[in-house]
């Protein structure tokens, strides 16, 4: 372990803004991307089911 304290770790020898700015945005982008793909899947599923339901309904009426 090379850090003497949490504060040292957060400060990163004065470069804290840059280091955590990099890591932070990276984590943020990855989190957003994961949310995005999950949402895309949910949308795909709902689009398919809506079309299927509409299809079955139209068949029932005709």
């Amino acid at each position, binding site marked *: 372990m090379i850090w003497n304290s949490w504060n040292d770790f957060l400060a990163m020898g004065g470069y804290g803004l*840059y280091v955590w700015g990099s890591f932070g945005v*990276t984590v943020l*982008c990855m989190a957003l991307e994961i949310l995005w*793909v999950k949402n895309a*899947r949910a949308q795909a*599923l709902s689009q*398919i*089911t809506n079309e*299927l*339901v509409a299809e079955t309904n139209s068949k029932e009426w005709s």
Partner: protein
Amino acid sequence: MIHKLFFYASPQNFYPLAGKLWPFFAALATALTVWGLWLGMFVAPTDFQQGEGYRIIFVHVPVSWMSMVIYLAMAFWALLGLTFNTRLSGMMTQALAPTGAIFAFLSLWTGALWGKPMWGAWWVWDARLTSELILFFLYLGHIALTSAIDDPRRADKAGGILALVGALNVPVIYFSVKWWNTLHQGASVSLTKGSSMAQVMLEAMLIMGVAFWMYAVALALYRVRSIILIRERHTQWVADLPEVRAQTMKNAAGGANV
């Protein structure tokens, strides 16, 4: 073996395979990230010249590598798709593009945050950063083209040609930018100038590289499943999927008051 490969070339067969595989890649990515960050943030010593600021390389270098690897992967799938006329190849190319673009952006972002404390400027026109910027534009162009074309098959093929043309051009672009840069000695520094890196630092960087790779694969597999669903939505096998049936039951039950 070849027969097996062509079996999975059909979206219907690839869909469940991707579904089984992506969690493994996600788990690997997580484990490797934890290990890599542990090494990089808690074991690797302070750099003699750059203090603690150098630790940005543990994300900057991996995302830069991956932005290039992913583009090559896209070109590979494009070549496959144009040669064998398989639908899945085009879907894989499109599944990879967003992750690649995001990595290219992160490379530029982390590069800027590294450059500011080290050389005093948020941006320097060094050969690598400039090439990365152009790579980012290539990604955006690819995504723009495939989204603008309505016909999915045409989008696949056009995207495939663009990815191949881009991949062939990337070395030319890199070489020309390097040439351009050395003749204009503005910031004559290289981002990965290794005053031989400590063993631990290199190790952590490589582990993080593989970690991001696993992440990219996991995401691409997950994303291609959604693409397959949309493209194949008029087929029976999609209608028979358990997740689709479950949702259809729900919808039908809820909306049956006709």
